[in-house]
């Protein structure tokens, strides 16, 4: 059995998809040249695949292109799988907080690899480059660079200092901003905070916000709802500060401080300054 894998250059999630593809059969890697145009990319992928299985990365684009492939072929598509066994898959629901075992009723498998469910492949592949005709396909017309105001982006930060309902107000984030600045990190928040209008949605970490993978995630006054955990479970280490010792967040934490964040966060900043002289 042969399998075609869609890869994007220099993309970690593509190397993870490659690992999944290698477990399914003999791999042919393809990449697409030219402006992003999901329907045209999918058509090129369909043509290149012949009757083979198709694997993509579990990125926004990977899931989008595979959904176009599935619509073009009228076949089922299993997004964000963590395992494939014959015609059965295990796939993520709820941003990974729940798994579904499912059977694919088709003679080919169309899947994307859930982010960070597979190790990146070390195989050096020579990807076949496809250059699809655009033929009026919907395509990117313009690119707007972000206005980050010189700040480190949430997705790239090595340290994220994140606040939840326990922060209490928009002003309460000043202490988190201070700590984040001392650590060259970024400030994040939970969904409760953006819904309350205390922070912009661009700061939201979670299933419907940004998914982060810093070296350290500091969760301040965050209860640990599945919505939030889906966005921060990629962190290497998690430090939780919460005055409720029963908070769910502690079950996901490597380090815990049980107490009032309004006292502890400024104290950490003060201690850091002291340590640095």
């Amino acid at each position, binding site marked *: 059995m042969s399998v075609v894998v869609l890869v994007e250059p220099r993309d970690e999630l593509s190397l993870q998809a490659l690992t999944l593809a290698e477990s399914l059969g003999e791999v042919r890697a393809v990449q697409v040249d030219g402006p992003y145009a999901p329907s045209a990319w999918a058509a090129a992928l369909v043509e290149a695949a012949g009757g083979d299985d198709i694997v993509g990365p579990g990125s926004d684009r990977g899931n989008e292109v595979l959904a176009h492939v599935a619509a073009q072929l009228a076949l089922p*598509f299993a997004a964000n799988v963590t395992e494939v066994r014959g015609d059965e898959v295990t796939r993520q629901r709820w941003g990974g907080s729940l798994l*579904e075992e499912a059977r694919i009723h088709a003679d080919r498998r169309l899947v994307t690899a859930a982010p960070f469910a597979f190790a990146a492949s070390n195989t050096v592949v020579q990807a076949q480059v496809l250059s699809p005709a655009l033929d009026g396909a919907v395509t990117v*017309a313009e*690119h707007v660079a972000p206005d980050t105001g010189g700040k480190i982006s949430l997705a790239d930060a090595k340290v994220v200092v994140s606040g939840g309902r326990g922060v209490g107000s928009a002003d309460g984030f000043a202490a988190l901003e201070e700590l984040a600045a001392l650590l060259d990190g970024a400030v994040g928040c939970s969904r409760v905070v953006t819904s309350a209008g205390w922070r912009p949605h661009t700061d939201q970490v979670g299933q419907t916000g940004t998914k982060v993978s810093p070296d350290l995630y500091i969760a301040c006054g965050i209860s640990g709802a599945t919505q939030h955990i889906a966005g921060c479970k990629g962190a290497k280490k998690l430090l939780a500060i919460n005055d409720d010792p029963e908070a769910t967040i502690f079950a996901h934490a490597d380090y815990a401080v049980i107490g009032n964040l309004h006292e502890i966060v400024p104290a950490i900043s003060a201690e850091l300054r002291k340590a640095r002289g």
Partner: protein
Amino acid sequence: MRILCLVKRVPITGGKMVLTADEQAIETKHLGFTISPHEECGVEEAVRIVEAQGGEVVVLTLGPPEAEEQLRECMALGADRAIHLVSGEEWDAQATASALVEAVRSEEPFDLIVFGNESADAGNYQVGIRVAYALGLPVVTGLKGLTVADGRARCEQEVATGRDVYDVALPAVVTVKEGLNLPRYPSVPAKLRANRKPVDARPVERPASKLEKLRLVVPEGVGKQAEVLADAAAVVGVLQQLGVA
């Protein structure tokens, strides 16, 4: 402008997933329900467009009888009426798309059809795209910005390096993400008005699933035992140890 918004009733899950004994669903006895966050922004955006330009917002769902509650919530946000495809079972993405397409065809024409980028629960990332193909319409996904004017939609999609902008002619299908706007809190009069708005309930039969759910599994806990740090000095010690201080 006639805008159709697709929504799905999902439980508000909190911190821990508990399954029913048959492992086919989340135990929802003690849970509230809502629509997926992306979709709430979709409804809000549609209502804003119609408030500014005139027209009608219709909401459509496929779900159990109780999903009428979510349709009323959408109408409290400002949608004018609702269509409810009633089925207590869970449908796969392909079957869902087919049922939605049939309902859309019975109500055409729409200038804009708005989905959430993916549902909070199943996360299939494909229903909107499948519907667009069946209707022969262009589709842009993951919108964080939308401007509708002169029969066209300017669609902004967030990517790692900023925003990609697409420009499509209407009618079109779009799928949106939370962050597109900050949805309003419905007022009490708006909620009362919503109770009087029409819901067209249509029973539907689920076909066989092409992606057949066998069972749900709660992933094994991370099994972490957090190290308790007594004070700020101990925290700084850890920060130094991790090399981030």
